[in-house]
């Protein structure tokens, strides 16, 4: 119904209507409003990128007026908190952010050109598995999910990570996405033992097993993997249902140990693209402001309250889209 009206850019008139009639300053989540004075804001007025930067607002009311009157093409705020946000100076700390963009998911079933319901759903599944690892392994709290218009942002406010530098953030990305091949040799008392990742049901090896299973189960005959030829891809797809009941040992022996190693090595490097690492390691990034309009696709950047039930096509579509004439 709405879908043929969706994903079309919003006209300046629609933007104005959105910010005057539909948008409410209270839609901005508390995690922004409670720190508005410490953040840098950026705006894109013409649809040519966020070149109006170094903006600061002393109160939410000033931000409200700005958005209402300027109705920007796009609005952003920094993940960083500063003493002097107008100069990006006096850095205090930054949210830890993970960006999962639906169109950049390494293995997509839909094969669409941009973003569709299928790959957005896949992005949400990935987000949900990242949250499991963030909580279960890393013990982190205060996690918020935001629908960005083309995917999802995970935003963490756990004090213990907000002061961490880019290097550590990079390692967290690797851990979460399963981007590193776990070692398979372990030594004790001078003797070396072989242990495959799937025999260790916790810690990083388990994360790697989960991400790798997800990737293998989503492979399509069109998927391109370095080191994996058509024959191997075919064999993997033929045997992959073994992984649904965790029969990794049998799966590995069906594929053959050498080819198995090639397979997981290329999946590991593919996993690196599950989240956009550039965003996570950038302490001074600006991110789309929740509640603002993503004018390119005419959708609202929306905080996801319930990840199980969230449907962007119900909760993130601005009213003006329904009133468009087809």
């Amino acid at each position, binding site marked *: 119904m709405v879908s043929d009206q969706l994903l079309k850019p919003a006209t300046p008139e629609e933007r104005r209507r959105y910010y005057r009639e539909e948008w409410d300053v209270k839609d901005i989540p508390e995690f922004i409003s409670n720190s508005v004075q410490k953040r840098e804001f950026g705006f894109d007025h013409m649809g040519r990128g966020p070149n109006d930067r170094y903006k600061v607002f002393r109160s939410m009311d000033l931000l409200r007026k700005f958005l209402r009157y300027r109705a920007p093409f796009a609005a952003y705020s920094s993940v960083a908190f500063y003493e002097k946000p107008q*100069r*990006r*100076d*006096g*850095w205090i700390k930054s949210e830890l952010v993970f960006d999962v963009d639906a169109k950049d998911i390494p293995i997509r079933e839909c094969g669409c050109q941009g973003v569709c319901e299928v790959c957005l759903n896949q992005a949400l599944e990935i987000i949900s598995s990242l949250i499991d690892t963030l909580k*279960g*392994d*890393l*013990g*982190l709290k205060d996690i918020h999910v935001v629908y960005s218009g083309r995917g999802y942002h995970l935003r963490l406010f756990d004090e*213990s*990570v907000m*002061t*961490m*530098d880019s*290097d*550590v953030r990079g*390692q*967290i990305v*690797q*851990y979460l996405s399963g981007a*590193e091949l*776990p070692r398979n040799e*372990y*030594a*004790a*008392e001078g003797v070396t*033992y072989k*242990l495959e990742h799937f*025999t*260790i*049901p*916790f*810690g*990083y090896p388990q994360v790697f097993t989960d991400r790798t299973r997800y990737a293998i189960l989503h492979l399509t005959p069109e998927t391109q993997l370095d080191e994996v030829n058509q024959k191997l891809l075919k064999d993997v797809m033929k045997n992959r249902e073994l992984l649904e009941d965790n029969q990794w040992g049998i799966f590995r022996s069906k594929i053959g140990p050498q080819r198995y190693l090639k397979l997981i090595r290329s999946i590991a490097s593919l996993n690196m693209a599950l989240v956009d690492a550039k965003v996570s390691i950038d*302490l*001074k990034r600006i991110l789309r402001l929740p509640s603002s309009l993503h004018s390119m696709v005419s959708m609202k950047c929306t905080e996801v309250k319930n990840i199980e039930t969230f449907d962007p096509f119900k909760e993130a579509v601005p009213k003006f889209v329904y009133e468009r004439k087809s």
Partner: protein
Amino acid sequence: MNKYSICMVNVAFINPFSDEARQIVREYGNLNTIYQENGDLIQLVTRSPSQDISDEESIPHNIMDLALKRMEWYVKKRNNLEFDYRKYSYLYNRNITNFDVIAFYLLVQAVSVKFGPNSRESRVMVEAQGKLMESRMGELLLSEKRDILGTILNTLLPREVKWTMFADLLSSRKIKLTDLVLDQGNIILDKDYFMENLGFKLEHRDPGKMYDLLIGDKIKELIINRMIMQKTEDYISEVYQKSQRQVEPNPILLELADKVTEILNQPMATYGYRGGATGKVEASPLNQEAFPPCVKIVLEGMKSGGRNDAIILFLTPFISYARLYPDVFRRNTTLRVSDVDPELAAVEKEILPLIHEAAERCTPPLFEDQPQEKVNINAKMGFGMHSEIELKHEGETTWYTPMSCEKVKLHLPSLCKPDKTCKSIGNPLSYYIHRLTDLRYEEATSEEPGEESKQESREE
């Protein structure tokens, strides 16, 4: 064989916060005896395996001496290529434990009362403790080491060791996040915890054996070491807080504190600013003539792409190391800027001006465009993400070492215009040292040939 060397190692030898160590402190009597000639100590020292006793100066005669030797050991070891291990063998002798623990507490009290937690003295004290513990662990038999690690794990550590406490170890890649076994934010080190929370998940495998395989000694050692350093730091703050409420600190402690400062200042005289005769390259004012072509290009100002990286990632480490620690790649020790430049005089007057000028010469000028990048320059010298360089922030980030030629070619290819000296080196900093030596030689030979030949014979 020396009878003493086979006795059991007391956990207090490694962990000064253990119950055993506290017991030693409780049983130690009068503080005034730390000054008195201590026959037992001298005997233990002189009988330590491979101890050099030829030099009377290197033998501590009382506990005060021992405390200072602990610091001297660390400072010398860190700064001297020709560090003589045999002069400090007794520090590895487990039989000195009782005296060593007292020396530890004296030092902590002295530096905290006089200088407080954010001082250079306190920081070096903490580092020295970490290094000493590491070296002592290295001397133990494997079975002893296991025992000690187990004991410390059971007592010192809370069962919950948060991985987030070790951001600096992760950042410096001493440990990798993917190498840790993590559960609910805790690094799993304790065997019981492992058995209760994770062991049951294993099928067809012996959990005890898996624990030994997965939770290696190396991780335990690193984590325990860091925990003890942290405890030392916390303890310094605690003592400092208490001392603020007292009227008069003990003069013995103040005197010890002053002597600690003297020890820390020693390397400045021999390493920091003066030329030596051993062929090592000292910190000295920059000679721009000896800069490699890539550095010269950046100093003229970047006119096209790569401006920010050229100034922040390439030029800042190069200039700061060339000025303060040109020998970094030849010596296997990490220093901080303030170890060489304690007042930050060279940083303020020589290093930053040079970097800032280069930044201004860019098109567009870096700071006009992005003033916040000044913070990144400070960060790359180890002073955290702050707009001003201040000692209290040192260590929040690491002092980045200069990029290798390979990295430059990869990330900033437009800088690489090699000349003939470049052929024999792999890092712009080595180029600088190389050229510097050549230039000095040329200078010496052209001006005072007589002086030069004398110098040569002295070096042999």
